[in-house]
C-alpha cells in the first residue's frame, strides 16, 4: 500500500526514531520501582473522578477508558492488576454507573457479548469450526427462560395478543437461578444435537449449515405460535419475570450508596446494578473456564485438530468427540447469557436473534483476536462502545448540523461496520488487536507457504 505523497523515507525514519526514543525513555522512567503502581492508581483515580464529576461527558469517559488501558499495560505485576481491576469493576463502576445509568447498561451489554464472543471463540478460535449461527444457542437460553419465566405455559392454546389479563406466572421469580444452569444444559444439548450430524463436514460447508441452523431457529421462534403457542410468534414473549431483590437489601444499599451517588436509587437502577454484578460474576467464571480449557489437554487437542486434522486424528485425537465438546462448550456460554438477557429485558422476540447478531459476535472475535481471551473481551468492548456510544454520538452531531438532511444515520449502518471490521482485519491484521500466541505462529506459517499452492488444503 504505497502512495505517492509520502515524505522522503529518511526524514520519516529519523522523526520516528526520535519519537520512539522519547517513548522508550518515558517507559523506562515509569517502569522503575513503585512508579508504575503509583501511576496506575493515580490515573485510574483521576479518570474515575472525572467521570464522577461529569457523568455525561464523553471526554471524561474516554479518559477513564484510557486510564484503565494504561494501567493494564504498565509493568505492575499480575496481583496488583487483579486487585486494581477488581476494585474498578466492583466498586468504582457501580458508583459511576449509578451516576449515569448508561454506563451500567453498557458494561452489562459488554459482559453479555463478551461471554458470547468467548463462547464463539472456543468454537472458531480453539477448534477452528466456523459457526455462523451462533446466536441460535443464545436464543435457546433466552426462550427457555422466556417460556418458563412468563405466563406462556398457560397460554398454549391462546392466539398471540389475546392473553387473559389475570394469567398467573408459571414459576416463582426465584426459579431464575436454577434456570441459569438449565440454560447452560439446554444450549449445550442443542449444540450436541446440531453438531452430531454436521461435524463431519468440511470448514466452509459447516459454516453454511450453521448459518442455516441459525435461520431455522429464528423461523421456528417466529412461527411456533401454532399449532401450540410456544413462542408467541413475531410479537415475542413479555413480561418475563426477574428475580426479586429483597426490600431490606434495597433499603440498606440505598442508605449506603445514595449519599455517594447523590440521589436515591430507584428500583430500575437496582435491577441494572443487579444484572451488572450477575453478568460480571458469570463472565469471571467463563474466563476461568476458558483459560483452563485453553491450557488443558482438550485445548491442545482442539488446536491440533484445527491446525491439521489428518495429523491430529492419526495421533489418536478423538475428532468427533472433541468437536462436539467445543460446540457444546461454546453453546453453553450463550445459553446462560440468553437466560440472563431474557430476564434483564423482560422480553424476547425473534428479531434479537438474526444472522446479523451472529456476525456481530463473530466480528468481535475477529477484531479482538481469534483464539485470544483478552483480545475477544476487548473486541466485544470496542464493538459495543462503537455501536452504542460512538455511532449515536456521530448521528447526534450530524442531526444537529443545520441544513444537513439527516439521510445518513450511522447507527442504522451496523452491517457496514461489521463488514468493514471483518474485511479490514482479515487483510491487515488477521490475528486481531491482541493476537493469541498460537494464532500468530499459524498465520506466519501461512505466509511462508504462499509460494506453494494450498497451505489451507488440509483444512
Amino acid at each position, binding site marked *: 500500500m504505497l502512495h505517492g505523497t509520502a515524505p522522503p523515507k529518511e526524514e520519516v525514519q529519523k522523526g520516528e526514531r526520535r519519537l520512539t526514543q522519547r517513548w522508550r525513555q518515558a517507559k523506562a522512567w515509569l517502569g522503575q520501582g513503585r512508579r508504575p503502581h503509583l501511576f496506575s492508581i493515580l490515573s485510574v483515580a483521576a479518570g474515575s473522578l472525572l467521570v464522577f464529576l461529569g457523568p455525561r461527558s464523553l471526554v471524561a469517559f474516554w479518559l477513564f477508558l484510557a486510564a484503565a488501558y494504561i494501567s493494564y499495560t504498565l509493568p505492575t505485576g499480575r496481583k496488583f492488576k487483579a486487585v486494581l481491576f477488581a476494585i474498578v469493576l466492583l466498586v468504582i463502576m457501580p458508583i459511576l454507573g449509578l451516576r449515569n445509568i448508561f454506563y451500567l447498561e453498557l458494561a452489562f451489554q459488554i459482559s453479555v457479548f463478551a461471554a458470547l464472543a468467548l463462547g464463539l471463540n472456543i468454537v472458531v478460535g480453539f477448534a477452528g469450526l466456523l459457526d455462523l449461527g451462533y446466536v441460535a444457542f443464545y436464543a435457546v437460553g433466552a426462550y427457555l427462560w422466556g417460556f418458563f419465566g412468563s405466563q406462556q405455559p398457560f397460554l398454549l392454546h391462546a392466539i398471540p395478543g389475546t392473553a387473559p389479563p389475570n394469567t398467573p406466572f408459571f414459576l416463582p421469580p426465584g426459579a431464575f437461578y436454577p434456570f441459569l444452569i438449565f440454560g447452560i444444559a439446554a444450549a449445550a444439548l442443542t449444540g450436541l444435537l446440531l453438531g452430531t*450430524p454436521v461435524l463431519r463436514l468440511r470448514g466452509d460447508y459447516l459454516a453454511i449449515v450453521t448459518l*442455516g441452523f441459525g435461520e431455522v431457529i429464528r423461523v421456528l421462534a417466529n412461527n411456533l405460535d401454532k399449532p401450540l403457542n410456544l413462542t408467541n410468534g413475531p410479537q415475542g414473549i413479555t413480561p418475563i419475570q426477574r428475580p426479586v431483590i429483597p426490600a431490606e437489601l434495597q433499603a440498606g444499599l440505598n442508605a449506603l450508596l445514595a449519599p455517594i451517588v447523590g440521589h436515591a436509587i430507584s428500583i430500575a437502577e437496582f435491577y441494572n446494578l443487579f444484572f451488572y454484578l450477575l453478568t460480571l460474576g458469570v463472565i469471571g467464571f467463563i474466563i476461568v473456564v476458558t483459560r483452563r480449557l485453553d491450557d488443558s489437554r482438550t485445548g491442545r487437542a482442539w488446536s491440533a485438530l484445527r491446525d491439521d486434522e489428518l495429523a491430529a486424528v492419526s495421533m489418536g485425537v478423538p475428532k468427533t468427540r472433541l468437536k462436539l465438546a467445543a460446540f457444546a462448550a461454546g453453546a453453553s456460554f450463550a445459553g446462560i447469557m440468553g437466560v440472563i438477557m431474557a430476564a434483564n429485558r423482560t422480553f424476547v422476540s425473534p428479531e434479537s436473534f438474526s444472522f446479523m447478531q451472529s456476525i456481530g459476535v463473530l*466480528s468481535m472475535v475477529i477484531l479482538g483476536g481469534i483464539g485470544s481471551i483478552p483480545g475477544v473481551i476487548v473486541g466485544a468492548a470496542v464493538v459495543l462502545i462503537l455501536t452504542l456510544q460512538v455511532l449515536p454520538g456521530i448521528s447526534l452531531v450530524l442531526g444537529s448540523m443545520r441544513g444537513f438532511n439527516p439521510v*445518513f444515520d450511522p447507527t442504522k449502518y451496523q452491517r*457496514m461496520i461489521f463488514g*468493514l471490521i471483518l474485511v479490514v482485519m482479515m487483510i491487515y491484521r488477521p490475528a486481531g488487536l491482541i493476537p493469541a500466541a498460537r494464532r500468530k505462529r499459524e498465520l506466519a506459517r*501461512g505466509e511462508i507457504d504462499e509460494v506453494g499452492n494450498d497451505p489451507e488444503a488440509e483444512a
Partner: protein
Amino acid sequence: MRRLTQSPLLREILRPFGQVFVFVGISAVTISSSLISLAFLMRNSYANEVLFGKTGQNLPTYVITNLPQVLIDGITVGFVYAAIALGYSMVYGVLEFINFAHSEIFAIGAFVGVELLILIDNLGILAGASIPESYLFLFLAILAGMALAGAAAMSVERIAYRPLRGAPRLVPLISAIGVSFFLADAIRLTESVTTGQFYRVFPTFGNFDELIELARMNVFGIPFNLVIQVKSIVVIVAALLMMVGLSTFVNASRTGKAIRAVAQDRPTASLMGIDVNRIIAITFLVGGALGGAAGVLFALKFTRIDPFVGFFPGLKAFTAAVLGGIGNLVGALLGGIVLGMLETAAGAYLSAFTAGAFGAEYKDIFAFAILILVLIVRPSGLLGEQVGQKA
C-alpha cells in the same frame, strides 16, 4: 448431420438443452409421483378431513389438481436459483471458496436493472412501449445489471480476496462474509441517499404480467386452468440462454479451457503460461455477470426488491449448488431445478398435509433440511464426483 454433432461448438450449445429437458422431466416425475402416493396414503387421515372441510376436496384430488401449476412455478423459481448457483459454482470450482458476497452481487444487478428501467420510465417512453420495444428495454436492463454486477464482483475479488490467497481457509471466507454485509448496507445507503427509499419496485410495462393459458383440463370433474405468466417464460428462456452461453464459454473457448485448467491445478496451469490472476478475475467477472442477470430476472418475477433481497435467494442458490455438486456447472442447474420444485411443492402442500399446523412459512426450513441431508448423505452432491477431500 453427423459432422454437425461432432462440431464441439454446436455440441456445447445443444447439450444444456438436453440436460435441462432430462432434469426437469425426472424431477417433475419423481416429485409428482411421491406427492401423489403420499396423498393416497393419507386419504383417510385427519389432515384429509380438515382439507375436505375447508375446500371440499379430498387430499389426492387437491394434490393432483394443483400439481401442474406447482410444477410450473417450481421450474421458474428453480431457474432463478440455478442462474445464481452458477456463479457460486464457478468461483468454487476455481478457488475452492464460497463467495459469500455473491448474493449481494445479485442484489446489485437487480438494483441496477430496476433503476435503469425506472429511469426509462421517468423519461416517459416505458409506459407506452410496444412489445418489441419493451423486450429491448428489458434486455438493456439485464445487460446493465450484468455489466455492473460483473464489475463489482471483479473489484471485490481484487480488493478483498486476492490479498488473502494462500491464507488459511477460514480467512477468505470471513472476508467474504464481511464484503457481503458491507455491500448490503452500501446498496441501502446509496438508495436512501439518492431516492430516500430502501426498496424499489419493478415498473409495469410490456406484456410481462399477462397470463398464457397452457391447458384447460377436467380432472375428477373439477375444471381447472393451467396458466403461466409471460414473465415466467421470459425468466426460463433467459436463464436457459445464460446456461448455454456459459456452457459454450467454459467448454468450447480458449479462456474457458484456461479456467478449467486453473480449477484443476493452479500451479501447473501457471507453469503452462496461464495468467492465473487474470483467469480468476475473469471467473469472477463471468460469475458476477450471471448473478447480475439473475438479479434482474428475479426483480422481473417478484417485482419488489430491497437491499437484503440477495440473502435468501443466495442461500438457496448455494444450497442448490451443493445439492447438485458444487464446482459442477451442470450440477448447479440440476440442483436449482430440484430445489425450486421441492420448495414450491413444500410451500403449496405443507399446510394441506399437516392439517394446517405448518404453513408455507416453513419452506425455508425445508430447503435447509434438504441441504443438511444432502451434505450428510452425499457430501459431494447429486452429480459431484465421489472423491475424498482434496489433499
